[in-house]
């Protein structure tokens, strides 16, 4: 429960953070809310030599509307601030709803959106949500900024497309125009725990039919996945197509086996939870 000793650097700006990462290379780690990183350090599963604290980089906090009509959420925005943000609630309520199911109140007041995504944890709830929303990541490195689509961002267990010297500055999500419904079915062992499987159903409804359906799955592989077979089967159909479509929720996934669930049980859960999420979202 005592981390190995490390050096502590506080970055005041994004540029300082990037410079510090550049100087220390893979010996350095950014410290956001610390709620994923510090537990690993205390167990000495992570032993970075330098921690670059970005907790006071105000430029990475808060939510605004972008020129292209999306929402930009600063990566250092805490889960609680995402949930409470009026723009998020108005234009992307699904994100507020999923965020509200992350951990407990303490976690949500310290943990950040950027940290949760950059950590790349397969059991984390927010990656599936950003993926289902077709969000993008604005990241800054020594050579300036670039944008990474969510589907390219998550690479493997605890591995993302970020370079060692890059910082996630913000996450962009679309405003959901039209009649969207959603439900995140998070299935966990005890309350306030990580998802064994999570299924996010996001449905655009037009005149009683499903114009568009999106399904993001948590913990059905090393990275969050979209249940594209289900999405394809539903587009243009009525809600009564959901039960059959959801049977394909686990198609093409590579669900892990662990103490809470075997791979087969995860696949079963994915089908049940996807059906329930979509039925609620379409209803």
């Amino acid at each position, binding site marked *: 429960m005592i981390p190995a000793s490390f050096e502590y650097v506080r970055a005041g700006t994004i540029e300082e953070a990037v410079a510090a990462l550049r100087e220390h290379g893979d010996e350095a780690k950014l410290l956001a809310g610390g709620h994923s990183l510090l537990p690993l350090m205390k167990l000495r599963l992570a032993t970075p030599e330098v921690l670059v604290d970005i907790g006071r980089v105000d430029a990475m906090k808060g939510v605004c509307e972008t020129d292209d009509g999306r929402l930009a959420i600063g990566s250092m925005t805490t889960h609680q601030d995402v949930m409470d943000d009026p723009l998020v609630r108005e234009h992307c309520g699904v994100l507020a709803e999923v965020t509200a199911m992350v951990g407990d109140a303490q976690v949500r007041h310290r943990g950040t959106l950027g940290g949760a995504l950059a950590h790349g944890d397969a059991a984390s709830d927010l990656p599936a949500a950003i993926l289902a929303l077709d969000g993008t990541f604005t990241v800054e490195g020594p050579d300036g900024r670039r944008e990474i689509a969510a589907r390219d961002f998550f690479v493997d267990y605890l591995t993302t497309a970020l370079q060692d010297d890059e910082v996630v500055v913000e996450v962009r999500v679309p405003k959901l125009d039209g009649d969207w419904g959603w439900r995140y079915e998070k299935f966990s062992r*005890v309350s306030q725990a990580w998802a064994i499987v999570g299924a996010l159903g996001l449905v655009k409804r037009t005149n009683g039919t499903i114009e568009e359906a999106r399904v993001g799955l948590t913990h059905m592989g090393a990275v969050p996945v979209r249940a594209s077979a289900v999405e394809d089967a539903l587009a243009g159909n009525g809600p009564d197509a959901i039960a059959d479509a959801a049977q394909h929720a686990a198609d093409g996934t590579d669900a892990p086996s662990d*103490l809470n669930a075997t791979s087969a049980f995860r696949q079963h859960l994915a089908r049940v939870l996807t059906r329930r999420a979509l039925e609620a979202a379409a209803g």
Partner: protein
Amino acid sequence: MTATEAPTTGHVGQVRLRKEDARLVTGRATWTDNITPAGCLYMMVVRSPMAHATVTGVDVSVATDAPGVVAAYTGADLADAWQTSLPSVWQVTPDVKEPPHYPLTQDKVRFVGDGVAVVLATSRQAAVDAAELVDVTYDPLPAVTDVAQALKDEVLVHDDEGTNRCYSYHWDSGNVDEVFEQADVVVERRLINQRLIPTAIEPRAVVAQPEPTGGYTVFSATQIPHILRIQLAIVCGVPEHQLRVVAPDVGGGFGSKLNIYAEEALALALAQKLGQPIKWTETRSEGYQATIHGRDHIQDLAIAATSDGRIVGFKADIKADLGAYLQLVTTGTPMLGAFMYPAIYKLEAHDLTITGVFTTKTPTDAYRGAGRPEATFAIERMVDELAAELGMDPMEVRRKSWIAHEEFPYDTITGLTYDSGNYEAATDKAMALFGYDELRREQQQRRDDGDTTQLGIGISTFTEMCGLAPSRALGSLNYRAGGWEHATIRMLPTGKIQVITGTSPHGQGHVTSWSQIAADALGLPYEDVEVLHGDTAISHKGMDTYGSRSLAIGGYAVHEAAQKVIAKAKRFAAHLLEASEDDIEFADGTFSVRGSPDAAKTIQDIALAVFAAHDYPEDMEPALDAEATIDPENFSFPHGTHLCAAEVDTETGRVTIRRYVAVDDVGKVINPQIVEGQVHGGIAQGVGQALYEEAVYDADGNLTTGSLLDYHVPSAADLPAFETDRTETPATSNPLGVKGVGEAGTIASTPAVVNAVVDALRPMGVTDVRMPTSPQHVWEAIEAAQGGAA
């Protein structure tokens, strides 16, 4: 009030807010980890990452040179520090294997977490860093992680013993073969009582400190300061009178702090060696490896009955996984259940085999209930299985077979005498509160509708034996200690008292309950009682707290000491009032002369007069203090009826408890709120076993549930609001009429919940769900019953 009125019981039976709580809830408690003597060295134990290996080398030289490190030692370096092995207290059979168990191993490591070296440093950080620098080389051996494999004796945990079978114990009574042959129905099942981790909220910690006047003080997060003193004195060769053991505030134990641990012995031995205070506090993950585990039985069971549902026989063949070494009561824990397999039923035959087996896992030992939850789970699950087989209501089967209230005292087939009980009363009350018939109707409706969420009803009409224990009974079982308890009452000059108890509370509220008992007995204000405990310098004698013993024996001792104070005070009163002792009456703290109510002295008057000692009987000492050592005449037998309604989502396997009704009979109640607290916590812990908790090892012997991330302890958010009530059938074995309540909820609730889960799924063909009844296990049970390939 006149002296002719009968004494009132002003405090006993009433809710009194706990005297303990103000300190605890305002953060002013003193936990062992808060104690840091000047010059204290922090100890880190270097533990084996392997389940089973020959230790080919331990090199502490690099660690010794690390910053802040004062010393580092291997098992060999400290071999001379030990006068004996760490103790195992119960010789359960004459030929039980009791392999040596030293605080650090030398030859082999036998479980992940086995200690191989220690590092001492001036800060905790330095100790943690340096521990990583100790170079241990291992020659791996195969892990032995289940009892069937262990019993083949192909890989031995303790080579010198020649077998992994620690002991085999067999006991039968009645004509077993005949009863089973003639029975109309016999139901057999294999049930798994999984391994659990106790998880007290305060981790273990110890501080050993040399005293300038010679001798040592050991502060420990322990349930057993008195037993620890004797045993540490023996293990470390410290004269008993030079060893003071203090249990400061202790945050829960559930049996996990009922032990003599390697770290306690190490801290004392190193304080002896270096002449400096030594401190150690476990981390949660460290505790999960190095603090005892509980349960871990495979139960092969058979129940026999007549076709109309009268239970006649029970057989249990138990394989108990003891883990790698014998801790204090490792051998005896299954034995504590040995008497209880017949439970409340009037059996004609009983057959029990217990095989204790060494494996390369953390040692098991007493965990809340210790043996009795295992026995109760076995019988109560099997009664439900029998009822299903017979197509009868499970409560009907119980009613046909249990001991009727007019049959007490009742001699059981296992040789116990249940002094009192009323199963009918508790059951009737529970059934009414629960609305049993209504819930059965709803269950049928859901079955008829093919609802994906099914409803199950689970019953547990449990009893247990607690109040450990009559010393002669322990002696006859080759338990190497007694079961008495001690109390002293010191009368202070102003009539206030100090009660010194040999029990060692760690959450149970003895300070409050003992105050209520003493205040009523002596007619004193509740506020005028101070209760002292947990320090061998103050409480010289005691057998500590476990096995729901404290009230039935320790509370009894307080009551008895108070009677002795009254007897003395009566003689002083007679002297001062110039009356015959036979004419002195005592009520509500006042001694008066029969027939002349104005001639009276309060107990405070007498206390002051005795203190002054100007005028007192020739043949007396000027003192009112008294002590009592109580050796109970019998165990006590709380019982109750617990009913659980659980919803099972047959698609996801999730179980949600909808109602939980518990009617407990714990005899007379001293403080209803404390009793309720014990029942609530107990039920929660039993639900933990039924639904959530399991210590899992992989094939290599690694504990894969190594932290609270993977070992699921339920929180309040996972539990329903328990509905509790009581019946009160006084125990006849003590003057307070009290039984015990610490373990009752845990013993009762596990089968109630699992019975409910199985009941919900029975129409799908399910006859058992392995604990914990997790979504995975429920799903597997459904798939298996329906011929799927889960």
